[in-house]
């Protein structure tokens, strides 16, 4: 019998940024994380903070998967009773930022070079000692990655990153 294969799915894995508005309580946050761990989805980064109203929180999740997986993630998140809204920002124009603190080895000979690199990335030195510099950088994930990459040759000791936070752009660019 001829069988048409009707289960071909779009298998291209894409990065997605989801903005989730949710009642501010830890049970809700646990349920959100539980959807990912329990159903085998991935979290690349997650950030959690209060939103405009104090009883609501905005959670920004970056994840990846094919179209079908992202659709399931969105639907499963929407099913959580405390979730008010799920926005997949990927399809909109949006701004996202991440903050990273990087502690890098800086000797007398390398310090000025590191500071020059930091200037290129508009990063700020926020702590200094004879052997170390701690630098703050904000930007999207790629920029932060690139900056950390530039610092590796000098010896990166520690990194603390916030994960992305994101909002939809209001102005869509058409004039």
């Amino acid at each position: 019998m001829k069988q048409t294969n009707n289960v071909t799915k779009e298998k291209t894995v894409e990065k997605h940024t989801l903005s989730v508005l949710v009642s501010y309580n830890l049970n809700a946050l646990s349920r959100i994380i539980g959807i990912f761990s329990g159903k085998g989805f991935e979290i690349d980064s997650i950030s959690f903070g209060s939103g405009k109203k104090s009883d609501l929180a905005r959670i920004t999740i970056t994840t990846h998967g094919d179209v079908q997986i992202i659709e399931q993630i969105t639907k499963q998140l929407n099913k959580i009773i405390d979730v008010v809204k799920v926005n997949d920002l990927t399809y909109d124009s949006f701004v996202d930022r991440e903050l990273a603190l990087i502690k890098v080895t800086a000797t007398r000979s390398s310090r000025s070079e590191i500071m020059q690199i930091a200037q290129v990335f508009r990063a700020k030195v926020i702590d200094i000692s004879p052997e170390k510099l701690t630098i703050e950088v904000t930007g999207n994930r790629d920029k932060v990655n690139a900056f950390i990459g530039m610092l590796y040759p000098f010896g990166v000791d520690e990194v603390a990153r916030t994960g992305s936070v994101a909002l939809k752009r209001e102005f869509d660019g058409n004039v």
Partner: protein
Amino acid sequence: MAQAKTQTIDSATNKSQTPEPAVLNGAELLIRTLKDIKVDTIFGYPGGAVLPIYDALFDEHDINHVLIRHEQAGAHAADGYARATGKAGVVLVTSGPGGTNTVTGIATAAMDSIPLVVFTGQVPTELIGNDAFQEADIVGITRPITKHNYLVKDVNNLEQVVREAFHVATSGRPGPVLVDLPKDMLNTECRYSGLKKISIPSYKPTEEGHATQISKAAQLLSEAKKPLIYAGGGAVLGEAWEELTAMAERLNIPVTTTLMGLGGFPESKPQSVGMLGMHGTYYANMAMTECDVLLAVGARFDDRVTGRLDGFSPHSKKIHIDIDPSNIGKNVPVDIPIVGDVKKVLPSIDRQATKPDTEKWWDTINTWKREHPLKVPDSETTIKPQLMIERISHYTNGEAIVVTDVGQHQMWAAQHYTFNYPRSFLSSGGLGTMGYGFPAAMGAAFGCPDRTVVCITGDGGFQMTAYELATAVEYEVPLKIAIMNNECLGMVRQWQELFFNKRYSHSILKKGNPDFVKLAESYGAVGLRATNPKEMDEVLEQAMAINDGPVVMDFKVEEHENCYPMVPSGAALNEMVEGDE
């Protein structure tokens, strides 16, 4: 859904007629709120943390508290009550082990979308996190298996939480909800307000289907040559059986149901092609494979239904109606998704669709039906399991509520009992919980005292919750328990025979099995035994006449009978094995 409205909105009407004191403690408030929601039955087990609630229940006459013998069985009983009545089942247990014992029952209900509200005691608020006596993080434990759960931290929220819990459990896609009650909440004074409407801003299930999608679906069905309706548990839970029957009859479209959908469409109607899936009928599985338009009604394309996905209904355009958007496109891509309540969407499609020309399609289906019927093997000496089901169907006129456990007997019951009424086949479909059958049957009997309830179970599954005989005897539940006793774990044995070289590893129960007649008698129940077809008829006749307590029927059946047709795992539906001839 209908039951949601009766349980939540009614509440306001009798607000001020009871002259009870306005100030009560949390436990009294709980009971008063439950009464207002019209809860009539609670399945529970007392313990330290819930003593205040049990004290409030002591003088309570409007709520029937059923003392079960184990909390797991309590959750199953509430589940059976919910499936049979359409109302939420209510469970009340203590903290720690009381809560953890309900976990299997909650997961069972979650997989089959059954409305349960489970109240668990909790240690006092100030002791939470201290490893206090009988403390367990039950909200954490049940998070993945509940639709929603609550820890009450302020007694002033208790009434709101209780009302929300029932609303969430019974509306949209139903499911279990757990409410954790720290002991100090139950002892604190508070006020009863008789809240009116429950509204959760972040929870608004979509009930009306999208008009354009409905028109597209109607058009597709009208133009179909080989249409098929595939009805799942949603058709029963959504109480859409009349709408479904009306549409299938008017358009003359064949209907197959899933295990959970049994009774959602009367099997005596000519449009019925029975159950599909792993142990479905030949003609249902063939119709699924050959159809050109598939209308899925409240079904979720479970792996036991679809078989190998790339061979599943490969030629059809698919329409899928479901109240839960996450079910749509989850396993199988769908051409026309419709998010909505099946009870509302079906009539809209029916109004717009014209009768498709299905004459040739019916010729094909009727040929399949004629050439590949379900078989009941003949024997005078031993009881064939299929015959056992057929005789039960005969003695109950096909009108009983049939509650099964899990395994071969479950599949035979699904195949050979003729289901014509909704809410009449209760079974753990999604989770496949052994031990479910007997307590769930008991719950159904509490919910529907006017109907005959038959529990069809196995010798393995019955032993998992057989202790509930104590409850059934205490409350004189007129339950017919038919044990299909093949002295082994039949379905495990069948798989071992077919796929593991007949190496029957730990699946034979013969040596340890009790004498089920004596077991029943030791509880004060009636026990009967049959070893051949003639005795079986006598036993069934006798059992049907007993109405003041449970009857345990031990039917010694053919041990090596296998359940067919069978779609081996990894095979497509049309590659089913029809059995040894």
